[in-house]
């Protein structure tokens, strides 16, 4: 892994972005406070009513939890997929094939159960 290169370019981009923001502040200047309304958060022309901790629909949390489950299952398929031909060549093809299809059956059952229990319905 070229870890040194990744760290180098990350630091470089961070400095690059920092300089861009500083430069824009230098040329454009800090925003002058001509009125309170200018510094309020955006609202359609009326005083802001709601606080920033807006309530978020629970569906988003549910989506995130389901994502983690399914993503881990998909990541398990990657090493299997990359070695599938090697396993076939070494004669263990049938074993690897059937075990992955059992895994996929569990995956499909999970997806079916999720759809059936209406976890993915957005109203």
């Amino acid at each position: 892994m070229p870890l040194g290169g990744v760290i180098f370019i990350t630091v470089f981009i961070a400095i690059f972005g920092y300089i861009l923001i500083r430069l824009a502040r230098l040329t454009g200047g800090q925003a002058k406070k001509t009125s309170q309304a200018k510094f309020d958060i955006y609202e359609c022309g009326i005083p802001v009513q709601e606080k920033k901790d807006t309530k978020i629909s629970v569906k988003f949390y549910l989506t995130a939890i389901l994502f983690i489950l399914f993503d881990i299952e998909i990541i398990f398929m990657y090493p299997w997929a990359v070695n599938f031909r090697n396993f076939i060549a070494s004669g263990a093809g049938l074993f690897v094939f059937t075990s992955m299809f059992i895994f996929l059956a569990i995956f499909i059952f999970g997806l079916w159960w999720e759809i059936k229990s209406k976890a993915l319905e957005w109203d």
Partner: protein
Amino acid sequence: MTSMGSTSFEITINLIKLVLVFLMMVQAVPILVWLERRGSAFIQNRFGPNRVGPLGLLQLLADAVKFLTKEDFAPEKGNRFMFYAAPVFALIPAAIAYMAVPMSVPLKLDGHTFLIQGFEINVGIVFILGISSLAAYTILMAGWGSGSKFSLMGAMRASAQIISYELALGLSIVGVILLYGTFNLTEMVNMQQGPLTFSMFGYTVTSSYLPNWGIFYQPVGMILFFAATFAESNRLPFDLAEGEAELVAGFHTEYGGFKMLMFFIGEYGHMMIASGLMTTFFFGGYGIPGISFQEMHQIGLNLLGTETLASIFNTVVHFLSYNLKFAIFLWIFIHVRWTLPRFRYDQLMDLGWKTMLPWALANTMLTAVVIFAASYFTI
């Protein structure tokens, strides 16, 4: 493998190369913005920007000057650190993931070999998927740091959409990995050279005029992958994060000037990663159909004489080939944006979870069955 070089000369060149790839990415954004504005104008029977310079090309420069003169603003109720850090962090995942895409054959100069890509990584696909999905964090940072409910709702929508389509994206790649048997993008490009060859049940069928590209083996995977990358890069028809009628501008409602420009660079960077991966997985990478790398090197040798010049010729020609394919996909991104209407949010989620995920699963299973059957019956 010491992929950053073994001598201090090679390491210096490789580090400069990283900076160059990054600047190239940043540089491509104004051109894409111009292309998008002109292209959309022609699609909608308008003129688009045509006043500043020839064909309006200097419009970008005028825009940059305008961005520079905008005063620096941060909302009082937000979190200042997150508000300023989010646009900077938006650049990083896009740039680093793009650097792992191979763009041409290695350049050989005086015994040194330079790869025309930022990093050579054996697990290229996993690296790109892992890094580019970090973009969800920058969007959430922007939404939370702005302290505005429009920003926060836009950020929640965007991150939920990104993670939902990540499943279909990840699963559509499993078929590609099964096909090539490697994570390394350069090896994938090498496998796609030569004429199209199917070998099954002991028979081998070779087509004389079709290239050996991944699209002929994975057509369903290609469609799923391309559709999922639209959602990943928050482009229409999946740009629910910034539906103007509902959310003003989504997670960058409070941003302006250079800070907003940096979000744009990140978004276009994700388009570039998607186009680069499409080219590499399904369209032969930097290869040219009908001519192998050695033949192109030989043509260069005949034309220019020396080994070094031939190597440069070889690299440049394949780089142009890569960029041509790359540009076609970028144009498709722009064309789709100005042709299709936006989805509704529940339709978007249904498409990701109930349509694309099962199709990607079916594609994976079919690929596995075909590969297994093909090898089983020949033995």
